[in-house]
C-alpha cells in the first residue's frame, strides 16, 4: 500500500515538471521580445572544423552592432546533420544554422525554417541565381546561401595532359606505368552518379527540378547513360567504388591518376601531388550512339537558415545575413577554400582562379544541375545508391537495364502507400 503511494507520488512529482513544458509549447512563436531587450542570446550551429571561423564571424557581428549585447552559444552540428538534429526538436534547435541545400524541402515542409522577407530583394540580388533557387520553395525564400558546392576532377599533371583530361575515354585508354586506376569515382553515391544521367540529358523532377512526378532516367537517354556505365564498371582502369578515404590514399601512393571529389579534399590531395596537382571540370564521355557529351553534375549549396521558432527573429535574421555577406564569404574562400555564392565574389575570376580547386568547381558548376529543394528529392539517394551497388556487383546487364531503370525511377517517384 505504502509502495503504491510512494511510487505513484514519485511518478506524479516527476511528471509534474514535464507539464510545465506542456503549457508552454505555444509560446515559442512569440516575437515581441525581439528588439527590446539589451541582451540577446543566439544559438548558432556550425560544423566542427568551421567553429573558429564561425566564432570570429559572430564576434565581428557583435562588434558591428554595439547597441545590443549579443551572447552566442555555439553548437557543433555539421551542415549535413542539420536536418536530423533540428527536426528532432525544432524548438530546442539553434536560432541560426547552416544546412545543405538538399534539406531545404524537408525542412520547409516540417516548418523548421523562417521565411525570409526582410531585405529579401537585396539577398536575392547579392547571390547567384542557382543558389537562390536552391533556397526557394514555392516562390518564397527560406535561407541565405553562402557556399557553392559541387564536385570536379583532380588529376596528376605528370600522368595526363590538359587535352587528355577532356575525354574520359581517352583517359581510360592510356596506359600509365605504376598506376592501377586511371579514373576514380564513387559510382554508388547518387550525388556523383547523377553526372552520367544529367550528362546524357536526363532530368530529375522535370525541367526546373520541382515536379515530384517527373524523372526520366529510364528514357532513351537514360538507357545510353546506363549502357555506358555497365561498360565502364567493367573497365579495370576505372575505379568504381572510391570513397574519399580511398581517393586520398590513392593519390598519396600514386595508384590513381585522376579522381572526382570536392573542395574538402583539396588540401590533402595538393599535399600528396605537390607540383603535379591539378583540378578541372569533369571530362566528356562518348555514348554508344557515337555522341560526345560533357558529364554533368549536381550543384549543391550551403545555406544559412533561421529557426522558425526562434525567440529573436530579427536578430537571428541579421546574424544570418551577416554570416553570409561578401566579407565573410571572402574569409570562407580564402581560408577554407569554400566557393562563394555572392555574385560579386563569384564573378571576380581573378581572385577565384588563384585557387585551382575553386576554379575547377566554378567551371564544373556551369554544367551542373541545381539540386532541387522539393521534399521528394529525399527519395532520390537510396535508389541511386542501390542502382550503383547493383552496377558494381555486376547485377545489371544490357538485358535487364531497362527493367532496372524503370524500377529506379519508380522508387524515386513512389509514394509509399501507392501500389
Amino acid at each position: 500500500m505504502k509502495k503504491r503511494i510512494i511510487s505513484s507520488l514519485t511518478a506524479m512529482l516527476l511528471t509534474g515538471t514535464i507539464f510545465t513544458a506542456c503549457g508552454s509549447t505555444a509560446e515559442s512563436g512569440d516575437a515581441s521580445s525581439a528588439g527590446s531587450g539589451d541582451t540577446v542570446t543566439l544559438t548558432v550551429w556550425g560544423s566542427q572544423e568551421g567553429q573558429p571561423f564561425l566564432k570570429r564571424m559572430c564576434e565581428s557581428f557583435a562588434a558591428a552592432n554595439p547597441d545590443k549585447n549579443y551572447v552566442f552559444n555555439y553548437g557543433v552540428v555539421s551542415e549535413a546533420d542539420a536536418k536530423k538534429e533540428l527536426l528532432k526538436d525544432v524548438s530546442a534547435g539553434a536560432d541560426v544554422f547552416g544546412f545543405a541545400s538538399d534539406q531545404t524541402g524537408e525542412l520547409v515542409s516540417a516548418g523548421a525554417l523562417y521565411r525570409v522577407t526582410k531585405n529579401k530583394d537585396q539577398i536575392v540580388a547579392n547571390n547567384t541565381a542557382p543558389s537562390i533557387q536552391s533556397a526557394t520553395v514555392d516562390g518564397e525564400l527560406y535561407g541565405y546561401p553562402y557556399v557553392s558546392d559541387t564536385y570536379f576532377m583532380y588529376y596528376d599533371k605528370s600522368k595526363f595532359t590538359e587535352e587528355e583530361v577532356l575525354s574520359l575515354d581517352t583517359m581510360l585508354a592510356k596506359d600509365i606505368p605504376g598506376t592501377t586506376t586511371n579514373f576514380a569515382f564513387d559510382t554508388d553515391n547518387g550525388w556523383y552518379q547523377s553526372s552520367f544521367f544529367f550528362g546524357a540529358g536526363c532530368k530529375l523532377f522535370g525541367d526546373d527540378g520541382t515536379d515530384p512526378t517527373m524523372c526520366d532516367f529510364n528514357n532513351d537517354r537514360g538507357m545510353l547513360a546506363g549502357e555506358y556505365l555497365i561498360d565502364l564498371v567493367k573497365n579495370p582502369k576505372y575505379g568504381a567504388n572510391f570513397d574519399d578515404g580511398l581517393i586520398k590514399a590513392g593519390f598519396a601512393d600514386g595508384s590513381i591518376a585522376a579522381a572526382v571529389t570536392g573542395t574538402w579534399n583539396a588540401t590533402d590531395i595538393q599535399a600528396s601531388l605537390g607540383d603535379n596537382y591539378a583540378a578541372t571540370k569533369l571530362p566528356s564521355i562518348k555514348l554508344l550512339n557515337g555522341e560526345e557529351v560533357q558529364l554533368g553534375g549536381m550543384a549543391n549549396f550551403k545555406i544559412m537558415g533561421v529557426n522558425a521558432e526562434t525567440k529573436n527573429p530579427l536578430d537571428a535574421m541579421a546574424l544570418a545575413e551577416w554570416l553570409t555577406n561578401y566579407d565573410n564569404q571572402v574569409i570562407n574562400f580564402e581560408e577554407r577554400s569554400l566557393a562563394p555564392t555572392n555574385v560579386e565574389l563569384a564573378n571576380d575570376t581573378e581572385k577565384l582562379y588563384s585557387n585551382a580547386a575553386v576554379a575547377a568547381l566554378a567551371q564544373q558548376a556551369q554544367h551542373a544541375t541545381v539540386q532541387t529543394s522539393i521534399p521528394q528529392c529525399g527519395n532520390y539517394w537510396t535508389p541511386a545508391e542501390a542502382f550503383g551497388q547493383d552496377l558494381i556487383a555486376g547485377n545489371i546487364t544490357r538485358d535487364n537495364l531497362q527493367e532496372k531503370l524503370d524500377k529506379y525511377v519508380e522508387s524515386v517517384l513512389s509514394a509509399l502507400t501507392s501500389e
Partner: protein
Amino acid sequence: MTEAEYYILPWYKKLICKASGALKKTGRGLVRFFQGIPGAVLSLFRKLGNGFKNYGMTFVKGGLLTKLSYVIMGAGNLFRGQIVKGLIFLLAQAAYIWFMITNGASCIAGLKNLGTVQRGWYFDEELGIDVMRENDDNSMLILLYGIFALFITAAFIILYVTNISSAAEAEKLSKSGAKLPKFKDDVAALLDGKFHKTLLAFPIAGVLIFTIVPLVYMILLAFTNYDKDHQVPANLFTWVGLDNFKTMLGANSTLSQTFWPVLGWTLIWAVFATFLNYVFGIILALLINKKGIRFKSFYRTLFVLAIAVPQFVSLLVMKNMLAEAGPVNVLLTELGLISSPLPFFTDPTWARVTVILVNLWIGIPYTMLITSGILMNIPDDLYEAARIDGASPFIMFTKITMPYVLFVTTPYLITQFIGNINNFNVIYFLTGGNPATLDYYQAGKTDLLVTWLYKLTVNSRDYCYASTIGILVFVICSVISLITFRNSQSYNNEEAFQ
C-alpha cells in the same frame, strides 16, 4: 514407437523423428499460449467486477468517515489519528485536481484528434517580417503529454482505491478496539513485511517513466499517419486505425515488398548467428579443455580479448579491414592469393555471409567462455562409462555434452536468439544495411528489421511505419520466447535449486 525401435532407425529418420517431436511440442506451446488468452481476459474482467462490487459494498457498509473518504481522500485515516498517511492522501488529491484543471484535462482531451490548429503565419507590420500565429498544435507533443496525463490518472485511481481500503481497514481496526498503526509502524513494515515494496518502488518508477511511457507512445504512433508528409511542427497528424499494418503486411505496397524479404533475412540471420555461435563456441571450449592441450589459459585469454574490446571499436575495425581496399584484401593480394579484391561487403550474398562470419568472431568466445566452466563440471565417469561402451567422440558429444550444456544454457540461448533478431550493432556498424537494392524501400540486403526501423526514423522520418515494424518485431519475439520459455526447465522449475 518403442525405445528399441527408435535406436535401430537410420540417423536421418531419427532426425525426422526428433524434428517432428519438436514441432509437436512447439504446436502444443502455441495452442497453450493462445488458450491462455481468453482465460486471462476473463479473470481480468472478473477481478474488475469484484473490484466494483467491493467498491459499492464498502460504501454501503462503511461508517461516516469511510463514506467521507470516497469524496475527500484520507478522511478515514486523518480523523482516526493516522495524520501523516491521511495528509499524503489529501495532498495527492489536491495535487491531482490542480493538475487536471491546469493541464491534464486538456491534455487528455487532445488525444482525440491530436490537434486541430495548424501552424500559420501572418505579416507583422511593426517588425517588418512574418511571425507565427500563436496557439498552434503539435500533434507529437499532444500525444506524448496525453499519455502522461493518462498515466497520472491511472496512478491517481490506484491511490484512490488504496485510500478507500485504507479507510475501511482503519474503521475495522478501531471498531475491534485494536491500536491503529502509526506512520512509524508503516515505515517499519516497509523494511520487513512489505520490504518488496521498498525495493521495487524506485525501479518501477524508473521503468514506468523511461521505458513504459515511451513504449506506449511508440505503440500508439503505429496507429497514426506520422510519416514524412506529416512532419511536426508545421503539420498535424492523426489516427488512421490499422492502415499502416494493412500497408505493411498487404501484398502490393513498396513497404510490404520490403518487409517480407527483410523479415526472412532477419530470421535466417538470427538462426545462423545464434546456433553457429553456440555450436562452434562449445566445440572451441571442448578443444581448449581437451586433456593434453597445452597453454589452456593462454588461449582462453586470447579469445576473451577479442570480446573484451568494446564492440563499436572491433566492428568498425572489422568493417575497415574487410573493405575492398582494406588490409585483408591487401594482405591476400600481397601474398599472391587473389588478383582482385574479394567483395566482402559489396555483393549481397558475400555481405550476408560476411556479417554472419564476423558475428562468429564476436560470438564464439562468449559461448566458449560460458560453456568452459559447464564442461568441466560434467562428471568424468559419464565419459568413462561411454568410452567403455565403445562410444565414438561424436556420440559422446551428442549424447552427453550437448544435453548437459543445453540444460544449463537454454535461457541464455533464448535470450541470444531474441538478442540477435534485435541485433542492431553488428549490422549498423559493419555494413549499415548495405548493399542497397532497388527492390527495397530505404533498406539494403543485410538490413534487419531493427536497422530498417532505425533508417526509417532517421533518413525518411516515417515514424508510423517504424512503429508498425517495432510492434511486429515484438509479436515475433514474444511468440518465440513465450513458447520456448514455457517449455524450458528453468521457467517451470524456478525453485529446483533452492
